């Protein structure tokens, strides 16, 4: 079953506006990552935030993590048409020493020119 759940499922905004996507998860994590996917193929890693971090920036991206609420948010500032994509959060899931990423269902972001 999916650990992370993104909200909203779909978001449509005008170019230049800010876009905020949220992710909630169920169990304790070590890291949370955000990925972007264009046209249903090829995910691209955006940012990794560790459980002891509260906020991280990368260019126009800002990620926050609230481990007490088991939630994270991804903010894209000054959006561009090229930001149109699906965005996924992924959490680690350790089980008996093995490791895997568990992805949410994603937020489909559309930037209107």
């Amino acid at each position: 079953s999916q650990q992370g759940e993104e909200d909203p499922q779909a978001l449509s905004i005008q170019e230049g506006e800010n876009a905020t996507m949220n992710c909630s998860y169920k169990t304790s994590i070590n890291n949370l990552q955000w990925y972007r996917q264009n046209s249903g193929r090829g995910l691209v890693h955006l940012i990794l935030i560790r459980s002891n971090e509260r906020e991280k920036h990368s260019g126009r991206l800002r990620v926050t993590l609230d481990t007490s609420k088991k939630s994270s948010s991804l903010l894209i500032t000054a959006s561009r048409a090229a930001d149109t994509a699906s965005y996924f959060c992924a959490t680690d899931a350790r089980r008996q020493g093995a490791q895997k990423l568990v992805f949410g269902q994603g937020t489909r972001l559309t930037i209107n020119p």
Partner: protein
Amino acid sequence: GAGVSQTPSNKVTEKGKYVELRCDPISGHTALYWYRQSLGQGPEFLIYFQGTGAADDSGLPNDRFFAVRPEGSVSTLKIQRTERGDSAVYLCASSLFGGLSYEQYFGPGTRLTVT
């Protein structure tokens, strides 16, 4: 440099047939992952290799699915007696080392359609 490549990009097969999907990871990456993504869903973990060995195969849905990585680089995902429910995009990813603190680099995927 070259990224993760997957072949074929598209595969159409009839129900009951056997298929092989290939993944070429980034050179030097020791960890390799297979995921499956259905339409409108996020990727679902299938199997993780550290070197030549499958360190975690807990995501393989049943014994029709099998994957190998005999020399610690190229990996092949094998599906026997395909079913229509196997239709999905199969994604491969590699990372420099195992462990979830390392970024995973994804290939473009193989879209499998079982008719």
